[in-house]
């Protein structure tokens, strides 16, 4: 088990955990948290690959991670804003009750 493999495993586990959270929790905010976890797992992958890449001085992987962190922040802001406004209309954050958009 090389170190990179270890990081990848951790990332995979984290991703799975995040996915599980996103799939199983009722609360929309927690679903968002799950998604954040998944994103972070992806970032961990990126950085790990960068660290063990043949040319780390190119910085590609880390830059990717940094940008994705920024994007994730934006995503979190908008997502939570959406949740709040949804809550304001239907006094709940329970996803099981949010099926207004079914065909």
């Amino acid at each position, binding site marked *: 088990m*090389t*170190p*990179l*493999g*270890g*990081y990848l495993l*951790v990332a*995979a*586990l*984290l*991703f*799975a*955990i995040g*996915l*599980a*959270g996103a*799939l*199983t*929790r*009722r*609360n929309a*905010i*927690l679903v*968002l*948290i*799950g998604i*954040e*976890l998944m994103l*972070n797992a992806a*970032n*961990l992958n990126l*950085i790990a690959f*960068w*660290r*063990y890449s*043949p040319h*780390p*001085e190119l*910085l590609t992987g*880390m*830059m990717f*991670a*940094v*940008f994705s*962190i*920024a994007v994730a*922040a*934006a*995503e*979190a*802001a*908008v997502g*939570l*804003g959406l*949740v*709040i406004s949804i809550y*304001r209309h239907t006094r709940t954050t*329970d*996803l*099981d009750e949010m099926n207004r958009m079914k065909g």
Partner: protein
Amino acid sequence: MSAVFWILAALTVLGGLAAVTLKNTVHCALAVTVAFAGLALLYLQLDAQFAGFAQILVYIGAVAILVVFAILLTRGSETPKQGIFSRSWFTGMTIAAGVFAVLGWAVIQSSQVLPDETVAPSVTVNQIGNALLGRYVLPLEIVALLLTAALVGAVIVAMHEKGESK
């Protein structure tokens, strides 16, 4: 595999688990913060100083706070009577497990082709800055635009409409 790595990994994973399993939403938020911190330390472990600090600054300093605020604004802290897990939680778990199985299997399979220990790259913030304003300037600009748009959008979405009774 150094002990530090395993400790940090354990910290992160446990934080994540707690985040998705705990009953109290605020506890979940705090737990996820722990996971974020663990990740940041992992980045440091990977000699990605800048990314690590950025992680702390953004996730612990901003996202966690945001989440907490959202929870308080949506009365999310009291737990719903019909359980915290959605009706279809079992399928969800299985699917997540499947995903992990696939990913993990892939990693294990390819572990022998993965590169072994390499020299730690020495990256100064100076280089990163130059890269950001040189090779990566376009993504930087785009991200700046995105963040501005997200800021405005979030404000508009979450703002009280006029005349809406609250």
